[in-house]
């Protein structure tokens, strides 16, 4: 029973990180109808920035906050400079741009910081709680993610800008007619997604080690979480990310040979959801008139 609880709690911790990535992916998807394949690499780059800042400042929290703020600004700039010019281009061109971004960030990180793994300390104290069920870092990750997601939810639900961002994503023409600058709302969405991705990156770095490919697996799990929850439901994406984290941990332990099957599991989940429940658990089925 203790083992089961340990696995579940650790799954929730890693699932929190998947939830951050899934939420970032879904935010962009809702506004643009596209998956940002570079979301993971952008988060990885942000994490390296936090690491570099940590080398000079010596304070992990300060480095973390600066890195998140920089990621927010970078997300806005990327949307304005790189994504906006192709906004009306065919879907294939847009996917190429996203993949291009992925390669650029991956290579830049390798160039600046080399491919040797680095260690980024946890945001949370080493000996905070005395429990055999969960480590302090994992507990911190779960609680901190819940806090961030709660703030994000309140922002979208209760602020004027949050409402305008939802309106711009759902009905851009109508949003313009009431005076919302849809272009800037998209840019702001990229900024927020990029900041949330950065948070996920810094939280996961102490678990997976910091190197340029650290997010490739996380992104795949994040996608699986987003699909499982429903790509048009931010709340669903968060729930999906948490579920994927827990399921992954269970599968590793209880499925024979499961410890070798990590990514296979994510792919099976993605294909399974797409085949049997394409709208996800909490998503809506969208019927388009042609």
């Amino acid at each position, binding site marked *: 029973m203790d083992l089961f609880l340990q696995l579940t709690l650790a799954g929730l911790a890693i699932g929190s990180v998947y939830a951050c990535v899934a939420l970032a992916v879904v935010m962009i998807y809702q506004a643009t109808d596209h998956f940002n394949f570079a979301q993971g690499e952008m988060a990885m780059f942000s994490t390296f920035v936090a690491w570099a800042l940590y080398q000079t400042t010596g304070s992990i929290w300060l480095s973390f906050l600066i890195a998140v703020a920089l990621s927010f600004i970078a997300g806005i700039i990327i949307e304005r400079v790189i994504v906006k010019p192709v906004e009306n281009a065919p879907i294939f061109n847009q996917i190429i741009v996203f993949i291009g971004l992925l390669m650029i960030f991956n290579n830049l990180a390798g160039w600046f910081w080399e491919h040797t793994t680095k260690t980024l300390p946890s945001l949370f104290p080493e000996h905070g709680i005395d429990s055999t069920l969960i480590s302090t870092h994992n507990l911190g990750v779960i609680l901190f993610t819940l806090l961030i997601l709660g703030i994000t939810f309140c922002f979208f639900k209760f602020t004027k800008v949050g409402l*305008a961002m*939802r309106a711009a994503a759902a009905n851009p023409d109508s*949003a313009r*007619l*009431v005076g919302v600058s849809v272009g800037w709302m998209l840019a702001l969405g990229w900024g927020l997604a990029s900041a949330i991705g950065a948070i996920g990156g810094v939280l996961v770095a102490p678990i997976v080690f910091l190197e340029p490919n650290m997010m490739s697996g996380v992104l795949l799990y994040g996608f699986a979480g987003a699909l499982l929850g429903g790509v048009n439901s931010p709340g669903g994406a968060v729930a999906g990310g948490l579920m994927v984290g827990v399921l992954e941990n269970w599968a590793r332990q209880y499925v024979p040979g499961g410890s070798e099957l990590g990514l296979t599991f994510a792919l099976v989940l993605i294909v399974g959801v797409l085949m049997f429940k394409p709208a996800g658990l909490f998503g809506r089925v969208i019927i388009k008139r042609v």
Partner: protein
Amino acid sequence: MKLLEVKGLKAFYRQTQALFGVDFELEEGSITTILGANGAGKTTTLRSISRMVRTEGEIKFDGQDITGLSTEKVAALGIAHVPEGRGTFVRQSVEENLQLGAYTRKSKNEVAKDIERVYTYFPRLMERRQQQAGTLSGGEQQMLAIGRALMLRPRLMLLDEPSFGLAPLIVQEIYEIMARIRDQEKASMLLVEQNANIALNLADQAYLLETGNVVMSGESEILRNDENVRKVYLGY
């Protein structure tokens, strides 16, 4: 005073030209209607004013040329567009739709008061204030669209076929409310309609559009009594 002056307006969708030099004007505090059949260019005329389509020619609002502005800047000048298809934010609540209508305004207090004022025009919206707007009936969504436009405190309302797809009784109800809005808010309206009968009843001035050209204009009375208009557009 002339609130809106349009001269030699041409509009294009890619290569296709939809308007061929349209002229019209609107006095402050009055209602002007643009009539015409399907495809005559009525919606395009409104979209030109809101800068949603490429145009040539002159569009002056309150003496200022607005052809260089973006759609959201035009809205910020006080031009509220009730679009074709009603433009409902379907996943947002009725009240959130109204709040979005007031996006360009600063004072939270005044916005809250205006929401209550919209509810006095449309009590049915008040009953459904927390409901998802997509679940409203067509008539209620039209009311919501007009209410959303009012939330801007508009100097000019552009109304694209408020009668479209609605039962005659509902159309009548909505037009009665529009008349009340004109009287109480001193609102100026540019009204586009296929339903010539009901639009001529409400409007002071009327223009008749055929395939992107103005073919007739004058006071509503004059068009109503014209034999040709009567036969083709009023059907008696």
